[in-house]
């Protein structure tokens, strides 16, 4: 993955830049020592690394504004960073950039149960937002699998989803308001605690803009009452086609499960060897979870089991207890770790129309044979968000490049069948140069025009999202 050459003028002014930043931040909030900046050299896309010029860890909105104002005046690129869990390289620095980390900003500012929202600083982790309200019977719905570590700031930047978004939506559907600092240091308030902020839907544009439009320091998000209970059912089938049909039939029957997860044979085999969850050995496995009271769950599961049984399942297992439910989820939750035991892997994130599932899985199988790289599929089938895990050996020369080429072909396939490059991980640097597969030049021009308005100098996370060739003129200006 190519990154633009660092700006020599910025590099040469490092001392000056650092000293101005130190003047507006507490001593321990500016990290400029080369050994220490290494901690910020990459995010969860670890194949790409570059230590930043320096890193700053402000504690509040005013400090963020002071930092951005200085960087704006001095023409220094800024890369915002949540918890650094991006799988797309969203927080990858350039050598001439200041990493602006929000890790110190993790406070709860306000909790309001009658109006059902919580306002937090955006360095707070996703899970600890729910943690702040769960004893009172509420939760924050978006649940990316990195939720223990990932920050709300990153969730907003990438519009993160999770396993339960078929029912509850993704970050953008749960975000009510933000405090955001613009690149020039201006602090803006968008939305609030009310629904559907007035004027143009700026909140909708900021969510998912990958830290390119501003730095969101505080967020007001909806909290929901916890359901009475939830229970999964596991089903195994002899073909991907049949499993795909079961997903369609369940949805058409009028049931809306909170989650429908899908695993294919390579993934089932890997997880069984690793976690021993007692999964059946078959071509396709589905985990379908529904919510409600015991009686409601019984009724929904009865309907789902009836549909499942019509398609000759290899196995059909309803969780009768919390323990059985945990066993059903055990394999799914260990899937990434299990694949990692076999080899290094690259996790893709394309989305496809659910109807294209069997075709896409067959094509991925064929491509796997052509490339000579194994691939396991585990994904959110209800919404078509796939997570193919391509296995490769990072120590074998050329394997990473081969894996990236295979990955690119899978994503092109996703677009070809009517889907998209990324369902919840974001574009970052990883899919940046594939954007032209999904979008024509006027489509990209329209998106870049938005960045022109928010960040005319293109200083914020500028080498991401758009193909370097497309954004070059703007970045150079």
């Amino acid at each position: 993955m190519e990154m633009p050459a660092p700006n020599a003028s910025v590099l040469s002014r490092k001392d000056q830049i650092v000293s101005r930043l130190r003047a507006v931040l507490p001593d321990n909030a500016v990290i400029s020592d080369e050994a220490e900046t290494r901690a910020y050299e990459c995010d969860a896309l670890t194949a790409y690394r570059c230590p930043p010029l320096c890193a700053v860890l402000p504690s509040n909105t005013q400090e963020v504004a002071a930092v951005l104002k200085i960087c704006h005046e001095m023409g220094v690129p800024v890369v915002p960073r949540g918890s650094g869990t991006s799988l797309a390289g969203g927080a990858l620095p350039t050598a001439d950039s200041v990493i602006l980390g929000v890790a110190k900003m993790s406070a709860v500012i306000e909790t309001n149960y009658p109006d059902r929202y919580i306002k937090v600083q955006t360095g707070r982790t996703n899970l600890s937002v729910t943690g702040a309200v769960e004893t009172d019977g509420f939760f924050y719905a978006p649940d990316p699998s990195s939720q223990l570590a990932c920050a709300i700031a990153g969730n907003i930047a990438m519009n993160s989803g999770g396993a339960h978004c078929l029912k509850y939506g993704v970050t953008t559907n749960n975000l009510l308001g933000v405090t955001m600092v613009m690149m020039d240091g201006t602090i803006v308030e968008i939305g609030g605690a009310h629904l559907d902020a007035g004027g143009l839907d700026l909140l909708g544009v900021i969510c998912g803009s990958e830290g390119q439009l501003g730095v969101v320091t505080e967020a007001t998000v909806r909290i929901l009452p916890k359901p009475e209970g939830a229970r999964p059912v596991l089903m195994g089938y002899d073909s991907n086609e049949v499993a795909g049909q079961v997903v369609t039939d369940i949805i058409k029957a009028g049931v809306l499960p909170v989650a429908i997860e899908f695993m294919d044979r390579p993934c089932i085999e890997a997880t069984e060897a690793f976690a021993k969850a007692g999964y059946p050995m078959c071509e396709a496995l589905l985990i379908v979870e529904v919510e409600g009271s015991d009686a409601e769950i019984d009724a929904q599961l009865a309907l789902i089991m009836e549909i499942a049984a019509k398609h000759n399942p290899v196995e059909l297992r309803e969780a009768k207890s919390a323990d059985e439910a945990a066993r059903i989820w055990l394999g799914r939750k260990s899937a990434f770790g299990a694949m990692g035991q076999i080899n290094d892997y690259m996790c893709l994130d394309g989305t496809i129309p659910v109807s294209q599932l069997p075709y896409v899985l067959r094509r991925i199988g064929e491509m796997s044979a052509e490339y000579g790289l194994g691939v396991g599929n585990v994904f959110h089938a209800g919404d078509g968000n796939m997570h193919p895990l391509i296995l490769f050996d990072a120590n074998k020369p050329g394997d990473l490049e081969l894996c990236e080429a295979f990955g690119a072909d899978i994503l092109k396939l996703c677009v070809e069948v009517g889907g998209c490059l990324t369902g919840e991980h974001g574009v970052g640097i990883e899919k940046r140069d594939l954007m032209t597969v999904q979008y024509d030049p006027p489509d990209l021009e329209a998106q870049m025009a938005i960045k022109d308005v928010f960040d005319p100098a293109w200083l914020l996370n500028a080498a991401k999202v758009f193909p370097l060739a497309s954004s070059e003129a703007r970045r150079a200006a």
Partner: protein
Amino acid sequence: MKPNSEQDLAQLITGADGPLRIQGGGTRSYGHATGDVLDMSAMSGITLYEPGALTIVAKAGTPLSEINAALSAENQRLAFEPMDHRALLGTTGEPTIGGGVAANVSGPRRISVGACRDFLLGVRFVDGAGNIIKNGGRVMKNVTGYDLVKLLAGSYGTLGVLTEVSFKVLPDLARQTTLVLTGLDDAQAVHAMSAALSSPYEVTGAAHDPAADKTRFRLEGFVDSVAYRAKELVHVLAPFGIPSEEETDWAAIRDVSVFADQPGNVWRISVKPSDAPALVARMGAKAVQYDWGGGLIWALTDDGDLRAKLGDFKGHATLIRGDVDTPTFQPEAAPLAAISAGLRKKFDPRNILNRGLMA
């Protein structure tokens, strides 16, 4: 002007020498756009519907009734419950899906499932310079590039003319029931609605009509589930009274039908629910209706700008029906107004799309 295709429309916009007033079905008369009418009704028809994927795609001029009929045949629906403005505004014509998106029109179920913009998966549009642009697509999870889908929803045609929209749809639930409390003042009603919406019983409508003395709670779902949740909700509402089960016309609540035949300005105010009663007390309105658990206030008032009475409040007020001298939309804070103006200038450099409607 009545384009038949995207290319037609692009040429028309490129060649326009004055402002264009975009029209779907012509059922929403609010706002003060100037210019020649650009009639989108010829760009009509459902282009794709996959019930098993909960997805529908239609051209912007497609009548809402056509979409509802297609969905209904598969026991599905547009869950955000778009309102029909005709009775309230005294208009005729046929509401279109594109018009609904342009105004981000949502009904009582918005409180539980989300707004029009939350179900919108993709858009195609022509901007003010004649560029044909697409964003999003037809899949439910999509974070590829910036989200212009949300930006276009509720932009009232000022950034571009929509040509095609795609939606996530949901099952049309088999049974519906409404519990009704009486005798509550506005503050008590909002408390009761908050209690119901904070319960796990999935209330999909919470509205309060002070004049009728009714606070209403809607439950939807499979028959047994509705019965069970209705029973549980009675316990939740016990501190506020004993509710009765009553046949309720939620379409009338959605369309604010009670104001249809009453003269006066009609305002739509979005606030956080607990702020609503005090705000209503300040309004001196002739009548009000609460929806969205108190988060949406419909107010019937005399002429004049209600915002003067509301003062500096957290939320926004839109003039849906009334005199032409009052701005339709809540003025924005300066930095946001600057961003919005910047975006309009990029997407519509000649300021020809619905000029004067939003800013």
